[in-house]
């Protein structure tokens, strides 16, 4: 993968390091451009969640609507929004892994920029990517009965919450990328982990559908925290607890996986 598209942000004649803001902006731009220039990643971000939405609606609408008396799209759009957030971060993790593998990160470390700048750039770009997927899902879901019933303020909050979720969950993939020895050892375990998070959330079926032993896991799942928050933002209802829950999970995920990833990078790993 070509990575040498970014000019060093510091001119050769200038002894001053780039400001943090400049460095971050450069790396956000690089991540977003890299994403947009790979047709398969755009397809996977936007087309695959839409395909999943249409397929799941066709397959499970009758069964789930017989089980709970509500439009399945109203449940599924927040559910697949969280799914898009989780599985979208897989591509970002693979991109970050190749940055480590090709030596791009080592090159950045030799430049007078903050070592955090590429990470910050990757995470902010992830929010942009997630927004594209979420807008596409909400627009397509509208045709099948998904509605923002609680006003424009909460509708905006819906998109903001999805972007915050994307920025938090992506740290899991970034950390795994720092310890993975090959691309094959990166994607399948993350894929399996995210599948379990998604299936054990309330984004696909209601809580009553789960066997009794599984219900506590469903309720404690960070993916459920975001599904519940998105559901309340779309349909209304008490927001205090869902916001607190999602915020605490985001902080915990960033604190744990962010710290692990940065420490891993700080000890000067060599990938491969």
């Amino acid at each position, binding site marked *: 993968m070509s990575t040498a598209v970014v000019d060093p942000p510091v001119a050769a004649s200038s002894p001053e390091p780039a400001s943090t803001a400049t460095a971050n902006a450069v790396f956000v731009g690089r991540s977003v451009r890299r994403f947009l220039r790979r047709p398969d990643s755009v397809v996977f971000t936007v087309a695959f969640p839409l395909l999943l939405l249409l*397929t799941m609606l*066709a397959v499970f609408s009758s069964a789930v609507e017989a089980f709970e008396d509500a439009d399945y799209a109203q449940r599924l759009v927040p559910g697949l929004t969280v799914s898009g957030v989780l599985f979208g971060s897989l591509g970002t993790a693979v991109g970050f892994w190749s940055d480590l593998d090709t030596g791009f990160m080592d090159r950045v470390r030799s430049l007078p920029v903050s070592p955090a700048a590429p990470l910050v750039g990757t995470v902010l770009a992830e929010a942009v990517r997630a927004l594209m997927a979420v807008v596409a899902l909400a627009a397509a879901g509208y045709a099948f009965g998904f509605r923002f019933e609680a006003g424009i303020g909460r509708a905006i909050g819906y998109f903001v919450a999805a972007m915050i979720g994307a920025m938090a969950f992506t740290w899991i993939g970034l950390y795994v990328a720092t310890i993975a020895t090959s691309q*094959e050892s990166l994607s399948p375990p993350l894929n399996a982990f995210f599948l379990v998070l998604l299936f054990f959330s309330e984004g696909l079926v209601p809580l009553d559908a789960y066997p009794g032993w599984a219900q506590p896991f469903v309720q404690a799942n960070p993916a459920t925290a975001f599904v519940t928050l998105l559901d309340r933002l779309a349909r209304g209802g008490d927001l205090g607890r869902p916001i607190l829950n999602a915020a605490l999970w985001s902080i915990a995920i960033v604190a744990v996986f962010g710290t692990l990833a940065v420490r891993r990078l700080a000890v000067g790993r060599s990938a491969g």
Partner: protein
Amino acid sequence: MTASLVLDAGLIGGRSIRKSSRNPASILGAIVFPLLFFALFNIVMRRIMEARDFDYVQLLPSTIVVQAMIFSAMSSAYFVAEDRVTGITGRFRSMPVHPLAPILGRAVADVARAFVSLSVVLIVGVIVGMRFDAGIGWLPVYVAVGLLFALGMALLFGLLGYVVSTPEAAVSAASIPYLPLLMLSSGFVPVEDFPGWLQPFVEWQPVTATIDALRALAGDGDIARDVTLALAWSVGLIVVFGAIATRRVRSVA
């Protein structure tokens, strides 16, 4: 000539089997992911479907077997692309190897991997409560129907391996048809649950045919009708895409 075909195909097939048995992603795809989907769909959908008289314990294993056969075909796309990109396919062409041997060897490896997958899913299915109510004598036919479908899909997805740039891109490309083929079938809900305009596709597509045949062989359905339809699809896929793949491999050099 025939002797060299069998020998060459055996050598090439053995090499492919050894390669995929040493590839962690291939092992995950063949064993771990089918079992994961089996567990997840059982946990998430079983209550909902049993309320509709759709017995997941008996019916879902055949769905997961077919899903595993498709995963196996996706691995085939990966290995075809890898062999082409690394140049080994061209190398075979330059050597005195029977021209059909690379395709046949690939098929042997695909069927072997599919057999491992199918066995694991069936063993876990039986442990969880699946029964062969039509008689255990149908088990060999069950296995054969599953493996023929795996071979047909492997030849179809294998073609992606000849046209894309990298092995990873082959898997990405294969995952686009995979989702609707598997989901828009009788695998997870009865055909009547689908919107009316979609039902003809759901009813007649190859994944439904194969799942229905497997279910019939395990005791739910009309064996003669369902197995005939499934075999017609699988043999059709094998003949058509086997012929195309043979032409492709001859043009790689």
